[in-house]
């Protein structure tokens, strides 16, 4: 009887040990498959950028080899200087920065002021107006493309940065107002009420209390704005038609049409990739160095970038 029991216990222990080993094997296999999937996915998602960077330093003869020669040999950095000499590179960079700064300042100032009104001040019709703010988020930019173009054309603003900057000084977009309002609501009311008791007016409170406390949120929105304007293509394409006023993206497009052509040829690929790299540097640097704020911002705001 007891001998039979011992045998049963030993059998159960053996089974349990076998089960544990099986689970461990499954787990190890699973882990390895997991990393394999990650490595494959990462390679697929990284290759285009690496290929762009590597091709931008190559000679014509090297760009079409399969498998690609990832480290260029010989090294040919003058793809950059040659292309940059073929169009007003620095002027277009300056134009881009003028628009960036104009939009950043206008959007952050006006969106935060409007958001302050909606978050802190009580006035008749506030909720109804805020619902209108939210509903304008549904209006796609392209609906107003034609009328805005005609409007700014009548003002004589074509080939100036004004059509791209000025609308941003009027609230900066419903989404930004909404996000800043949500952020202001998380600031304790006691803080600005204390300032009010000390004799600050509403706008002094906004400027000296609310804005300084909102720098993290403003920073995140500044990153989004910077990337969005840098990437913008359609609006500058419509409004800026002279070499002296074009943004970097548009200037590169027109340089491509003239110097590279529509039918891509290996002879011009290194230069095309050099200019693609040039326009990619700024957003990638912003992303790398401000990644933590950026990712927090994406999570909080739900913007996909």
């Amino acid at each position, binding site marked *: 009887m007891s001998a039979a029991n011992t045998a049963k216990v030993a059998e159960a222990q053996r089974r349990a040990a076998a089960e544990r080993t099986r689970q461990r094997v499954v787990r190890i296999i699973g882990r390895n498959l997991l990393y394999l999937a*990650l490595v494959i996915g990462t390679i697929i998602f990284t290759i285009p950028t690496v290929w762009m960077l590597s091709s931008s330093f190559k000679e014509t003869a090297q760009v079409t080899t399969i498998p690609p020669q990832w480290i260029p040999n010989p090294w040919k950095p003058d793809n950059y200087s040659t292309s940059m000499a073929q169009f007003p590179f620095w002027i277009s960079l300056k134009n881009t920065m003028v628009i960036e700064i104009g939009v950043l300042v206008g959007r952050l100032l006006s969106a935060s002021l409007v958001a302050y009104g909606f978050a802190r001040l009580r*006035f008749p019709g506030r909720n109804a107006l805020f619902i209108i703010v939210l509903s304008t988020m549904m209006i*796609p930019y392209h609906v107003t*493309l034609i009328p805005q173009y005609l*409007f700014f054309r009548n003002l004589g603003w074509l080939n100036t940065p004004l059509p791209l900057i000025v609308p941003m000084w*009027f609230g900066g977009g419903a989404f930004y107002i909404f996000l800043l309002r949500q952020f202001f609501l998380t600031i304790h009311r006691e803080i600005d009420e204390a300032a009010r008791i000390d004799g600050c007016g509403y706008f002094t409170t906004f400027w000296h209390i609310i804005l300084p406390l909102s720098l993290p949120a403003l920073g995140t929105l500044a990153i989004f704005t910077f990337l969005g304007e*840098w990437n913008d293509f359609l609006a500058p394409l419509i409004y800026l038609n002279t070499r002296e006023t074009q943004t970097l993206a548009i200037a590169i497009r027109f340089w491509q049409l003239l110097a590279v052509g529509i039918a891509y040829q290996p002879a011009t690929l290194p230069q095309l990739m050099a200019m693609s790299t040039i326009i990619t540097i700024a957003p990638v640097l912003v992303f790398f160095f401000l990644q933590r704020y950026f990712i927090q911002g994406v999570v909080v705001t739900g913007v*996909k970038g």
Partner: protein
Amino acid sequence: MASQVRMRRRHWWQTLAGQEAIAGYLAISPWIIGFLVFSAGMILYSFYLSFTQYNIVEPPKFIGLANYTKMFTRDDLFAQSLKVTAIYAVAVVPLGMIVAYSYAILLNQKVGGLSFWRTCFYMPVVVPAIAASYIFGWIFAPQYGLVNGYLRSIGIQGPGWFGDPTWALPGMVILALWGAGGGLILYLAALQSVPTDLYDATKVDGANAWQRFWAVTVPMTSPVLLFTFILGIIGSFQAFTGSYLLTQGGPLNATLFIVLYLYQKGWQDLSMGYAAGIGLVLFTIILILTVIVMITSRRLVYYAGTD
């Protein structure tokens, strides 16, 4: 008594509440002006324009509904642009979500070097559209491109991609999927906030990993899935840069997106009235789709704490 009299004589704007209201209206005045001029004003102007024939040079000529009748009965290119954009959206939005969501689930398994993987996957999102278009124009170049080069080395003749009416739109879809990492960060945050006791509870009930995924993970992250779905639809109906740079809508109008068609009508044919009408149709489509998604998803989406 005297003070009461003074109180009564005060005007509304001299009271504390009045002062606050005035400050409030002042604070939101930039938005009010912006809304009246750039949103409401422009949409009304758009309506007006869509009933006219307007080539910028001559003054607008009122033609009633002619633009819309032409759009929906005789304009094959408009029908083509609707079809192309719809196919593109139906392919890009779910595929992009599946790619990003699976990746987020992989990254949520307590992997080492999380920020490295995340950075690699997210970086294409910040690559400007113009650079991404040029890169993929080359990767898919029929003769010298990377993809067809590899295909040739294993004995397969690759298609003409952006030069081939059948493959140009799939090429655009792949270009868009390269930027699918945008959803990853949102999904990862949502997955990390799923309470672990829910998983423990289903484990006790004997659910396997697959059942746990469908019973816990998907429902708990469904608000974020809905959110990215709506944004994805709105975004892909506004696709422009890739086809403008790579194909100009061709070959054989295979990549003629609505916004590209609007651009061509407005700035190449100078049919401003017609283009304004296209913009309004696009607006209506996006509005209807968003409302449909919101209504149908009410049954499918789980919001914690709302029962």
